[in-house]
């Protein structure tokens, strides 16, 4: 059932729903950096050191409230191993925000961020919100990438940066909230611009032709 822009009645459906917005976020980064653990900490607020690896794609839902708006976050978790990119990149286009994760105890995962950024450029929608996430910041004794290095890389690519730890829970909520807030701001400014245009139809941020963008259309 396609609810493309304007064809359905978004407001009436939204009224039945327990949320005001539905945002799609994507977690990417090398294998073992802790993407699944971050998501688990965010959605379940717990940590399990013995996680199984993600094969293919997974997803979780968490509703947050920002500035009085209830936002449903649909977070997609991806397999980190390189060969899975042929499958996971299909999910880039529909994402409104992408969290790029590296592990502060592994130089390689940090260096690979550049490659992940290239992937975003190639496959994600233009202007997608990005956040560089440094995980495992609790492991100070094993740390090889300083906070400054992370910050520097983020600034260099003009994206936001945060250090967190899925194990202790430090900054995990903040990371997802910050991303949600940024997507919300962008979304609302687009919305108001459209209203100013006098257009009655509601445009959505994501591309309806991609896996993540398809079920949208009733998000506002």
């Amino acid at each position, binding site marked *: *059932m396609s*609810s493309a822009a304007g064809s*359905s009645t978004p407001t009436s*459906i939204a009224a039945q729903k327990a949320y005001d917005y539905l945002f799609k976020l994507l977690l990417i980064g090398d*294998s*073992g950096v802790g993407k699944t653990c971050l998501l688990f900490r965010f959605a379940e607020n717990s940590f399990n*050191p*013995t*996680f*199984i*690896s993600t*094969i*293919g*794609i997974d*997803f979780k*839902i968490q509703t947050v409230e920002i500035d009085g708006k209830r936002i449903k976050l649909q977070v997609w978790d991806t*397999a980190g*191993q390189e*060969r*899975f990119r*042929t*499958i996971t990149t*299909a999910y880039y286009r529909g994402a409104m925000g992408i969290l790029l994760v590296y592990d502060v105890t592994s130089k*390689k995962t940090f260096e690979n961020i550049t490659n992940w950024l290239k992937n975003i450029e190639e496959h994600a929608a233009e202007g997608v919100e990005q956040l560089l996430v440094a995980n495992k910041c609790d492991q100070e004794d094993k740390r090889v990438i300083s906070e400054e290095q992370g910050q520097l890389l983020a600034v260099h690519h003009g994206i936001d940066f945060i250090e967190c730890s899925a194990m202790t829970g430090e900054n995990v909520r903040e990371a997802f909230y910050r991303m949600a807030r940024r997507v919300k701001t962008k979304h609302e400014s687009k919305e108001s611009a459209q209203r100013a245009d006098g257009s009655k139809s509601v445009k959505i941020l994501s591309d309806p032709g991609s*896996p993540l963008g*398809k*079920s*949208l*259309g*009733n998000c506002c």
Partner: protein
Amino acid sequence: MYGSKSSLSSFQSSKFGDDSDDEDISEINRHGFKVKNGVIEDGLNVSIEKNREREGKWLLMLANWNLYSKSKKYQSKLKNRVRKGIPDAIRGKAWMFLRASAEGKLDDKGTTFKKLDEMSCSAEEDEQIEKDLHRQFPDHEMFSTKGSGKQDLYRVLKSWAVYRPEVGYCQGQAPIASLLLMHLTAEDAFWSLVAICDYFIPGYYDIGLTAIQMDGLILESLTGSYCSDVHKLLKATKVESMYYMTDWFMCIFIRTLPWNTVLRVFDLFLSEGVKVLFRVGLTMLRENLYSLSKKLKKNNADDLFMDAMTFAKRSPEVAKDEDYFIHQVCSCRVTERELTNEFQKQKKKWDKSKGDVRRNYFKRDPEGIYSDVKMPYTDGKMSKTINPISADAANVTTASRLTTVHESQEAQEEDANSQADERWKGVDSRNYDPNATIRPMPPLKTSAQTVDRAEINNKYLLTPERVYNVPVICMYGETDSKKTVMVYVHNYFPYFYVPSNKKEVDNDINAVTSILSSDSRLHGGSTRFLMTENNI
């Protein structure tokens, strides 16, 4: 050895396990998994007597393998017995027979694996494998924090990466290797993994992952003909096959289903080939989404999206009853022919930018997987430092693997049986009452010592000629001198579980070995003691 938590405590390598405290293992079920809340869910689905009877039949079958694997009449008997489930004690051995590698391994005299074992793969792959060692079945005794299975898992996966450098290690292989290691030695597990990756599901782990993507499209299309309501729901909610089937197919459902069912599906898969994946996949989708699909008329598809996403991937309730589930799976009539036709259709729409895609859905080479194939696992691509195996054999297997379409007599027969309107044969899952069939499971904590030996013999012992070279007892563990140990005891019947709480593993093993070898029924040399040294 089941229940031997403390026996593994000397294992403290940073590579294969860390030093963190393991929580106390109160109980381990018969598959080696830690039991949560004292509830053991993986009991035997048949009575012990029935199980013994089946074991007897299997022993006979393995002893006459050529007959059962070649004659048409006996083949179907074999197939049906696999469908009923291979008895635990026979399983490892039967898997070896089913993949037709027993002969191959003997030909090889163990040199290939030994050589591969000594070689190293690229640093990058090594790192990836090491990361994944800690992420397989943390609830299983072998693969928990201090489990000794990680070491063998490393050897198997690394050997694969050396053996097939052009494919390399794929994360989807680790769960399969782990499952194999729960039943086989590292070497046997390795050759089984090779057989699965090269023969059963070739291309699934290749760098481009084209084969699995193609199978995703085919599964999607088959959903249309086998459960159209579910197909409509998936289309309407835009839930794509790659989301739910990647993990399913790549790991042969190992990470999805309850363990009893996992083993049964794996039995079936080794016996009947890749179509089993589709049959299980369709069964899962139907079970998981059928009732939701009925809501499509009244609800907006977008409202059903979340439920569709969550339900699609889960393990259905009926999967808890493995007999019932397997019955359903076997009632799904997807054939190799159908898969091949579907492949030809999908290939026309295939996005060429993804790369070339080849599939072969027939489970056997023209001679049949059950025939005694000599060393079928080499196709000349093996590293030059390893003895090349007979070129003729290599050519045959390569050719059969890459043929996109070829006829198989059995497939034709099955095709004739399957009517277009008879998609699911005589099964209606909606009438399923989960409470009716789930059995109370007996706990493992039986004190084997107290059972009267003569009584066991009278009750369960089969006539000697029916007991034939089978590892009825299989034990794994780690010695104090940091060696991984796997003990196979042949010709011993009946088997039993030995709970071990002692620290002196070496002594334990010696004690068990001496008891077993003093038994008059074990004729000299039939106790095989496999010990592998590893420099950690």
